[in-house]
């Protein structure tokens, strides 16, 4: 089909297009803008900037960057306020579907399908959580199995409790945070199973999330099988030190077993332009602290601005 001339001319040109409006995306856009770059576009799929910070209502953010103990939601609000008054164009509720030749970025939103072009493209799309399927745990496939971050979204954004008797598999930070959150909301967290000999998350999170509420962490323990027809009814697990197997009743299983950078967009992107796309934040590698992701992204934004302005 031949497009009418007006439509072809209408495609917007940007110096920098950033995909993902979480902490890394916001920081890349902000520092590039502060370094004098104009025509910056930030594309976010949710209605609001902030990414995963918006479901992190707990403290532990901003101690390095803002020199203040903040919750994730406060960090998100503080940083997105920096973008106000800059010339950065922000598209929310817009989902990028592909990157093609000539650095064209296609996205969909309530206005339909649009394509824009950027001299530089940055992917700040964060991570996905590893799921039960990725661990190949035998057993049935009932409801009541969630990733820790999903349960966080259910409770903190939608006010829905995922279950009453919960076992958490893995001891990553989100799992620890959710053990406390579920306990505060009235669920019984029976224990956390960690297959490795030591805690996966930060020690400070174990103290304030598990020890404060007497939630046991069982290291060297492995989940063997999931039971339940419609809903999870229990699990079988093994103590890998004594090699004894046990069964326990529960109605919910949360998996906190690591994160994987989300770069699905690159799979369908022509390799000729893949090399020019920069990854930042958790899309590059998993960060322990948001402050670090922010600092690295600000450095990248500055670099790109310098490159393009020269």
């Amino acid at each position: 089909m031949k497009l009418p001339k007006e439509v072809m001319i209408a495609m917007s040109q940007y110096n920098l297009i950033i995909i993902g409006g979480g902490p890394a995306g916001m920081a890349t856009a902000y520092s590039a803008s502060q370094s004098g770059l104009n025509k910056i576009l930030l594309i976010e799929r949710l209605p609001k900037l902030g990414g995963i910070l918006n479901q992190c209502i707990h403290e532990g953010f901003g101690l390095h960057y803002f020199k203040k103990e903040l919750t994730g939601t406060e960090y998100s609000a503080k940083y997105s306020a920096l973008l106000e008054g800059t010339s950065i164009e922000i598209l929310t509720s817009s989902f990028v579907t592909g990157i093609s030749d000539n650095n064209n970025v296609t996205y969909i939103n309530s206005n339909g399908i649009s394509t824009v072009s950027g001299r530089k493209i940055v992917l700040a799309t964060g991570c996905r959580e590893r799921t039960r399927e990725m661990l190949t745990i035998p057993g049935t496939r009932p409801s009541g199995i969630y990733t820790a971050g999903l349960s966080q979204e259910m409770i903190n954004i939608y006010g829905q409790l995922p279950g009453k008797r919960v076992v958490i598999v893995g001891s990553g930070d989100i799992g620890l945070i959710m053990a406390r959150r579920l306990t505060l909301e009235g669920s019984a967290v029976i224990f956390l199973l960690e297959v490795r000999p030591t805690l996966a998350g930060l020690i400070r999170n174990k103290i304030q999330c598990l020890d404060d509420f007497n939630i046991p962490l069982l290291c060297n323990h492995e989940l063997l099988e999931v039971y339940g027809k419609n809903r999870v009814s229990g699990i079988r697990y093994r103590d890998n030190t004594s090699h004894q197997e046990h069964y326990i009743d529960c109605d919910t299983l949360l998996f906190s077993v690591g994160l994987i950078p989300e770069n699905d967009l690159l799979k369908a992107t022509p390799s000729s332009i893949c090399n020019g796309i920069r990854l930042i934040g958790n899309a590059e590698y998993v960060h322990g602290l948001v402050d670090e992701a922010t600092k690295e992204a600000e450095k990248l934004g500055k670099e790109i601005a310098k490159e393009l302005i020269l």
Partner: protein
Amino acid sequence: MTTVICIICPNSCECVVNDNTVSGAKCKRGVSFSLQEVSLPLRTVTSTICCQLIDKRLRIPVKTKSSVPIKDIPHIMKRIKQLVIYHKPELGELIINKDILMDTILIITGT
């Protein structure tokens, strides 16, 4: 002599409290944290409250204005759960409600 791990920052200093002296803390925040921790451990509680507007109902994140003793957390959570606000709050707004929250003051941490 008691050993506490400081939870103020990710450094996680192992602090030894001996009477009223603290060793092992890399900064002064660790000293005051450790002294408090051995007498009465305090924590900031974070949760969400119900915000009922004309056309929709939202969950709004909050935290306690000051940190509270760990043993009081279940009571405070019970009160926070009962609370409903009927306006869209501002970031940093204080929520004071003597009837439901008693002396606890909440800060809005997101909108």
